[in-house]
């Protein structure tokens, strides 16, 4: 039963002030959520490594659950294994994903995320930390069979906008023992551009997000709150969810 907040690390060029703000926010938000998920260079824009941010968090907070995304698009398998090895004992889980194409980094391999999870499980990493894969909000179940066969601990979803979407995934995947972590985009003016970009229709829950979040949490047992441009709004909602 976990309420996780998603954090995008700053761009690599970020100065110390930006990093300081980030860690202040992490410290603050950690009091109202169970976990933090750190993304890995979203949209292919190079950002500070989530593992480095996680290490810094662990210096002061041993309790908060930490998960990280790990892009496979621009990495060799040996590099991935190295990062995962280094992550053991620091993060609780890793979301293995293909990642968006980058304008600056060329794709290094033809690795796909399910193959990587299979390989990491074969090497025993799945016993040392939780390995996750991602699925669309309305997955075609037959077409995600390779991801299912890879035996991750569970699946992070893309942003969901209805209870039915989550019900569908939990009904199919939970009986097989998978955890489902539905991603919810906080509806707020500041996040409206993200919603537009992701083509998310939040009209059904815009005015009762708290209730929607509770319903999704009741169904899945987990939720991931994403609020890329509205930290204050996210803090308020998480505070209410925590009570």
């Amino acid at each position, binding site marked *: 039963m976990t309420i996780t907040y998603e954090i995008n690390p700053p761009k690599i060029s970020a100065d110390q002030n930006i990093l300081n703000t980030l860690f202040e926010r992490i410290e603050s938000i950690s009091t109202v959520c169970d976990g933090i998920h750190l993304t890995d260079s979203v949209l292919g824009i190079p950002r500070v490594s989530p593992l480095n941010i996680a290490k810094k968090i662990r210096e002061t907070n041993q309790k908060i659950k930490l998960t990280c995304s790990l892009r496979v698009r621009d990495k060799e398998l040996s590099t991935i294994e190295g990062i995962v090895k280094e992550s053991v004992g620091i993060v609780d889980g890793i979301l293995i994903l293909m990642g968006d194409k980058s304008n600056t980094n060329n794709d290094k391999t033809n690795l796909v995320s399910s193959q990587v999870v299979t390989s990491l499980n074969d090497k025993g990493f799945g016993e040392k930390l939780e390995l996750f894969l991602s699925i669309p*909000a309305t997955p075609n179940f037959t*077409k995600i069979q390779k991801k299912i066969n890879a035996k991750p601990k569970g699946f992070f979803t893309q942003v969901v906008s209805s209870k039915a979407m989550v019900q569908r995934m939990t009904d199919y995947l939970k009986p097989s023992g998978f955890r489902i972590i539905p991603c919810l985009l906080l509806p707020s003016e500041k996040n409206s551009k993200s919603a537009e970009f992701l083509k998310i229709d939040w009209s059904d829950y815009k005015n009762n997000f708290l209730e929607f979040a509770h319903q999704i949490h009741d169904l899945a047992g987990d939720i991931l709150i994403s609020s890329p441009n509205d930290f204050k709004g996210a803090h308020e909602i998480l505070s209410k969810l925590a009570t």
Partner: protein
Amino acid sequence: MISSYTFGIYPRSEELIEATRKNTENLNSLFQKETEEYISAQKNANLGFVSDPLLKWDDIFRPFSNLETATPTALNRIYEMNTFYRVLSFDGQTFTDDGNLVQSNLDLSLLPKNRAAAIPEPFTFAERHTSKGFKTKEDFTISLAKMLRVEIDSLVESGFELIQLLGPSIAYNNEVDFGLVSDALKIITDGLKAKTILHTHFGDVSKKIESLLDLPVSGLGFDITTTPASSIEKHSFSDKLLTVGIINSFNTAIEKSEECIKQVDEINAETKPKESYVSTNFDLEYVPKEFAMNKISVLGEIARGAKDV
């Protein structure tokens, strides 16, 4: 007992998906085998009407890409689903069609006499595709309706007794020009010697039911996962056939037939339809094959258990 049917595209098995990706030698025999399995499943469930599972159709519009004036362009998402259709771009103002586009993509030899076919209704068709030849959406819609009528006439000649008109855009879009929907449907249904049922899914049509009841079709089909049964029950269907989309094609959970029978009986008692049907709420392609098979069987049980009207 009431009547029943499924409509739209069925799921390919994992083996068939893999075969289509690799274009294996046994691809055609796999298509044939799975088509036969799905048709047998519908017959075994005693469905009132049997449909081709459309396994070779990548989307419901794809056969129309063979029109001389249609050019397949980009892939577009099917509403909010993680499935896609190929947008067709229509050139010119006439759609040459000998009425064989849909029929030639169905396996007629496997279908029994009680056969049904699904076709997109013109408003949805026009809303999802583009035209270079028409200045207005209205003209494009009407021209598509004329082309679809030729297709439907051909299907009726081949013994199709039920034509399922798929109108998800009517449900999904907030703004719907019902005058245009009606004009286009009139072209399709005027004097047609087959039943026509308009299916609305991917959106709640609670506020549109009055307008839907005025449309020139034999009946209406509702997805009761998005349009609450309580909304449908407010209306009389004494002049219309009513299809309750009781089987949820979006979810793998298998319906409990007793509960569904009770719900269908309640809806029918309130709406008093001219004829009553049960169906899937939309294409079964959104669940894996094994679940689709189970759902077909449950659909048959519901139809057999529901009270006649």
